[in-house]
């Protein structure tokens, strides 16, 4: 059995790449030079995480990946890229078209997991883009419907997770395997929540790991909370700070962004095996560095609702790649200081 700690701090996944890597990423991807630079950037990012004192170091800021959709899609036969599609403003992503049966042509994350596991003794959480999001973000020109496509993505993701599980046996050094399924699209089609549950469960079938689900910028997290008893998931790492005020205080009015944790807690209370909640306490879409005291308020508010500090984890809303490395580090630093202050004052 692994010891469960209080208010574990964790990254969600990505961290801004150093310029020396981002500038040449696509040009050198897959070459020995890429591997060298990705490893260098990972070590530098791990050292930032070490310096601020993160408990869980993720995979060192996802330096081996450009973007969560493209990274997987690029390694699947059956997907064709016709060009870029707008995400917002002048930001674009490569949206693939599924034109034939999906097959994994290369592993998605094995090299990254192996390298990070060998570079640190700290707990690692491996983020993997989930099947529902992969389906929702692809053009479907082959499968007969969205369900069929989502389940096919679930099948290939499951193959990858099984390989990570096998690898983990050799590199874990006594650590438990932690997998985070990234599903930002989870609640975008409320009528498809059955498919969300079915495809996620299929993707983690036969995987003995601590499994978490990351969702962000949802208009209604209750759709997820309502399905917690059916999802084969141990915890939920969610975005809240983006929808909160920056006013100090632990009242409902100040912590408006965290209101629906009450709904989570009410459902969690009824479950025989309790789920943990990773609470987003810093907004990744603004350079505003949340003061330590504000973050303490946010943590204390969530803690007062959930009750058990072993069921509350502390994280940024989402990947910090949207901010500069300096800003990202400061945000994490304040997050850690706030957590440590609470541990000192309430649990020591």
């Amino acid at each position, binding site marked *: 059995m692994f010891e469960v700690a209080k208010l574990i701090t964790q990254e969600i996944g990505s961290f801004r790449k150093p310029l020396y890597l981002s500038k040449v990423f696509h040009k050198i991807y897959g070459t020995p030079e890429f591997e060298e630079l990705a490893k260098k950037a990972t070590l530098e990012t791990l050292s930032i995480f070490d310096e601020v004192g993160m408990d869980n170091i993720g995979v060192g800021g996802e330096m081996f990946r450009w973007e969560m959709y493209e990274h997987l899609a690029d390694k699947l036969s059956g997907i064709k890229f016709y060009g870029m599609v707008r995400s917002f403003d002048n930001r674009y992503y490569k949206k693939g078209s599924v034109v034939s049966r999906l097959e994994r042509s290369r592993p998605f994350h094995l090299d990254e997991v192996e390298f990070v596991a060998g570079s640190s003794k700290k707990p690692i959480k491996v983020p993997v883009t989930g099947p529902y999001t992969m389906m929702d973000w692809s053009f479907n020109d082959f499968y007969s419907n969205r369900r069929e496509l989502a389940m096919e993505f679930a099948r290939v993701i499951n193959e990858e997770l099984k390989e990570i599980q096998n690898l983990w046996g050799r590199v874990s050094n006594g650590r438990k395997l932690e997998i985070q399924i990234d599903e930002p699209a989870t609640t975008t089609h409320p009528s498809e929540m059955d498919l969300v549950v079915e495809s996620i469960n299929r993707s983690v079938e036969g995987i003995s790991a601590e499994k978490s689900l990351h969702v962000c*910028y949802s208009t209604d997290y209750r759709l997820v909370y309502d399905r917690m008893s059916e999802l084969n998931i141990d915890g939920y790492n969610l975005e809240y700070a983006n929808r909160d005020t920056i006013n100090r205080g632990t009242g409902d009015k100040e912590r408006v962004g965290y209101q629906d944790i009450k709904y989570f807690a009410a459902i969690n209370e009824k479950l025989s095996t309790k789920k943990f909640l990773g609470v987003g306490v810093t907004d990744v879409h603004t350079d505003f560095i949340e003061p330590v005291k504000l973050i303490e308020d946010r943590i204390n508010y969530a803690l007062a609702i959930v009750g058990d500090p072993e069921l509350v984890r502390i994280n940024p809303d989402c990947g910090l790649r949207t901010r500069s490395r300096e800003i990202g580090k400061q945000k994490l630093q304040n997050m850690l200081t706030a957590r440590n202050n609470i541990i000192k004052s309430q649990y020591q």
Partner: protein
Amino acid sequence: MRIKTMVYGIYPKNENLRKKLSQWERDIISGKEICEAIDAEKRRIYELFQDNGITYYTDPLLNWYDLFRPLALSMEGIELGPLTRYLETNTFYRKPVVNSIGGIKADPKDFFELKENPPLPLFNPDKNTFLFFPSPYTFFKMSTIPDRLDFSKFSHSILDNYKKIVRVFGIQKIVLFEAVPYVNDDISFLSDFAKEFSVTLITTGKLTENNFNKFSSTLESLITDPEYLDIAQKHSRIPGMKFIDAHRTALEKADKLENFENYDDLILTTNDYLDFLPESIANSKVELLGTAGV
């Protein structure tokens, strides 16, 4: 049957323009320079539409960062809210936050720098261009609106502003785009506007006769999903049908058209604006649409 074709709304940008916009965002090139680049690209797209025999088209709106942004930034009393998912897509827009609706802040025909959106002009029309606006109904449903501002007041003020813009450009042909279905609401808010201008209304989702109970005008064109074509025929001079899927990269087959031979005139268009597709696929779909036109 005479088949006409229409391309409307935001068109995808090519790589060159995306790079230029990125330079403009980083202050490497000026607002004037990005305006010139956008105008040149719009002219190229007009040629693409014409070369493919597209009958009707709107400005490709290459300087609109989303469906509402330059309009919201041009009107007194509206601010930009948070990035919000655009319906069930993976594209995001800044949700307008409406405090009140005042007048137009800038001449929409002139160069004018906006925060968080490429500069005006709102449109760079050619002689055939229709002006494009989100319908007030969609604007209302997809914005944050204070309780004191009901839909009637909102739509009246928005349409007043649209009229001002239309007059500045001196173009009477207008496309109003609905991104959300009417459900049980009626479209009487458009009665006066449709009397004054030649309005093509592009609807989304289910339509019933109830939506038209209080509507006291006739639209130039009503564009619907295929199953509501009878309603479109009844309430507009030229019915229109959504034929091209703007959310799939696979190209449609023209033989689907055989079912619609009973209509004298018919406009074929897309089921959404084409900005959800890669540019190369949008170009292919325009070409395909052009071949369907007779």
